[in-house]
């Protein structure tokens, strides 16, 4: 039914953002040219080229690492911890002050709805700096052993799904613990990291403390494999995670990995159904499903399967797909043509393997990369769409009859990042949460994040935690 109440377009103004025609690398406090062939970064909603961004070669990365080492040895390492904290507080404030600018730029470069970049990504990024700022001069009380010391230079490689937020998750704890940073943003979403570089200058952060090298996989490899890097932190695919773990084998480098997932969202028959459906929608369709902890497998108790699916479909029918800058958009663009191809391929496999595909009537814009919210029912645990990470707005629905079966199916994956439980029964929540092999368990909620709350995976979803007291350990020498 078309509504009488058609929301008129409500686009956030782009004018707040000044995208330069080209960007260099941020090394030693300066923007410098890269030696590699520059990359074009496009707006995935329109395929318009936003800017040309430098590619850092091995030599460029080496300069960045040397700058980071110098800054570590001469400035950041010896600095009074309280002052390090103050720099982070400054950065947090600047992120808040320039929040709208960051949000618009993030939505332009990534394709995510402005509602999410504005209400989730940017405020959380600022919160991460604010939280870690406070740790800088309190590390002795972190319970991580006596006299914790920084590791040195951290090489960090981040993904394209939450560009600024992942930067914050990496940079804030590294700096708070006294390390310096060489960070490589994803090749399709470098712009907010470069704007962050500007914030570092605005905050008068000493040169070399944060260095940002843009580029593709080769640049990332150069960062990870650089001899003078003491710590490698990576968020991205399990496949790349493996190769990084191989690359740092036999070195002194400390490694943390935050990789893929195939989270089960378990809905019991006594669940608060409307909130569960909402959580399922949130869990798989927010950020177009480009979320490592997305609830991509719905495990629903057989007795409420039909009711939940009907309710889910009705709810999906109200999602608004389109212009990421429109304040009423719920589902934005797929980040790249490459990712869109992968989502299409896996969805086709799902159908070919015998699962039933459902998509709402949904008009896709003519230009740009788009994929409608998709639900597969009749999925068996043997299907690829029940096992492989799609990293898109594609939900696979499986059923269970008993709590034991739910747990067995939920754990039947090589991943172990997150899981969801929906039931009104408290003791069941605790029992199931206890048995799920996943680093984050959301009960009667989903996709909640907070800087105070450790996040990270079991099994092949990676190791190490980000956030909370636990996240500090990844950046400290001898931390237990």
């Amino acid at each position: 039914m078309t509504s009488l109440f058609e929301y008129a377009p409500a686009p956030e103004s782009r004018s707040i953002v000044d995208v330069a025609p080209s960007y260099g690398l941020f090394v030693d406090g300066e923007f410098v040219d890269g030696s590699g062939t520059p990359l074009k970064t496009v707006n995935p909603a329109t395929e318009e080229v936003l800017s040309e961004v430098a590619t850092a070669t091995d030599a460029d990365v080496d300069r960045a690492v040397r700058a980071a080492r110098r800054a570590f040895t001469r400035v950041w390492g010896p600095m009074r911890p309280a002052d390090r904290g103050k720099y982070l507080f400054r950065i947090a404030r600047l992120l808040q002050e320039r929040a709208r600018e960051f949000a618009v730029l993030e939505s332009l470069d990534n394709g995510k709805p402005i509602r999410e970049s504005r209400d989730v990504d940017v405020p959380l990024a600022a919160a991460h700096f604010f939280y870690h700022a406070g740790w800088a001069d309190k590390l002795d009380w972190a319970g991580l052993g006596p006299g914790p010391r920084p590791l040195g230079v951290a090489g960090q490689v981040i993904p394209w799904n939450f560009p600024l937020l992942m930067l914050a998750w990496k940079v804030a704890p590294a700096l708070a613990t006294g390390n310096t940073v060489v960070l490589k943003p994803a090749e399709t979403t470098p712009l907010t990291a470069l704007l962050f570089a500007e914030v570092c200058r605005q905050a008068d952060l000493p040169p070399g403390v944060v260095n940002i090298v843009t580029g593709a996989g080769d640049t990332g490899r150069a960062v990870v494999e650089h001899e003078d890097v003491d710590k490698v932190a990576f968020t991205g695919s399990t496949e790349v995670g493996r190769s990084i773990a191989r690359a740092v084998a036999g070195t002194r480098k400390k490694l943390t990995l935050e990789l893929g997932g195939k989270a089960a969202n378990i809905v019991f028959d006594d669940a608060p159904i409307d909130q569960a459906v909402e959580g399922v929608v949130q869990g798989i369709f927010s950020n177009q499903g480009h979320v490592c902890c997305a609830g991509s497998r719905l495990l629903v108790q057989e007795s409420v399967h039909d009711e939940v699916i009907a309710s889910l479909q009705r709810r999906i029918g109200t999602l608004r797909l389109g212009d990421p800058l429109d304040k009423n958009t719920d589902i934005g663009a797929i980040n790249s043509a490459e990712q869109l191809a992968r989502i299409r391929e896996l969805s086709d496999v799902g159908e070919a393997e015998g699962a039933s595909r459902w998509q709402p009537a949904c008009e896709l814009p003519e230009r740009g990369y788009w994929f409608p919210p998709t639900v597969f029912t009749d999925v068996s645990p043997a299907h690829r769409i029940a096992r492989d990470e799609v990293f898109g707005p594609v939900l696979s629905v499986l059923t269970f009859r008993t709590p034991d079966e739910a747990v067995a199916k939920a754990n039947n994956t090589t991943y172990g990042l997150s899981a969801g439980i929906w039931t009104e029964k408290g003791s069941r929540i605790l029992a199931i949460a206890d048995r799920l092999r996943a680093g984050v368990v959301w009960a009667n909620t989903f996709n909640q994040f907070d800087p105070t709350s450790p996040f990270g995976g079991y099994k092949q979803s990676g190791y190490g935690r980000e956030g909370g007291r636990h996240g500090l350990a990844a950046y400290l020498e001898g931390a237990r």
Partner: protein
Amino acid sequence: MTHVLDPDAPAAAIPPRREPLAPYRDVTRSDAAFRAFLHGLPGVDQVGAESRVAVLGTRSIKTTAKAWALDAAISMVDLTTLEGSDTPGKVRSLAAKARRPDPGDPSCPQVAAVCVYGDLAGVARDALQGTGIHVAAVATAFPSGRASRAVKLADVRDAVANGADEIDMVIDRGAFLAGRYLDVYDEIVAVKDACGDAHLKVILETGELVTLDNVRRASWLAMLAGGDFIKTSTGKVSPAATLPVCLVMLEAVRDFRAATGRQVGVKPAGGIRTTKDAIKHLVLVNEVAGPGWLSPDWFRFGASSLLNDLLLQRQKLRTGHYSGPDHVSVD
């Protein structure tokens, strides 16, 4: 017209309990069955409900959408006065405003109803003759509902006889909170009978029910008993209408229609004072119950000061500049 209550009158034979619609015919068979049914409804997670309305609250309603929403909201207002100091003059003035909310703009829609105490329903009826604007009267010992059933039913009959074609009753919250669900049900059924042709709005007084689980149960109870509308509040208890409460009630009417085929309206009342609040409610209606509820037949705002804010916003949209309180009429 006066009603004389005769305490010595023989009790009327108790008619067999009216059954709810299929597929729920047997749920009122016994106290135990009814309790099992109401407590078997899916629970509501408060935090989840609040975050859902928070997200819907970010919908940005601009230009044409806003123009539509303003007119829709005005047409859904039950323009209300429920004060001890109400007089026929006050009610006539309200009725005049109901007919022509913006005297300077004949394109402005009229409101849905004027809502008054039962003794003034006749004044409202006379003042609204021929306008199509409904006369709503609160009854059943509004707002507390603390009177005998005979008094409550007399109150209803009196209001209807005075000319009300909509009755806003209050449920017995004491009985509800004590778990005497069938008592509450029977009373609504009896009031519905007493209404005759008048539409029945059932006020749950959600501020006294406190939990959203209770709001869902009370909504179902009222719908099963035959209420034409479920209404949040009397306006005399705080909190009155809140978005999470409205969300749960909209889910209830949506689910009830899906199960029984019968559509029930929703009326948040009390505390909705700004256009922004009203539009948030309309977004909720649109995205939760669906566009089928986006009309005065199925959604109302119980309000008084809201109307002036809607009018000011409407003027701004029409003229392109801001206005002030002296450019709309005082009630």
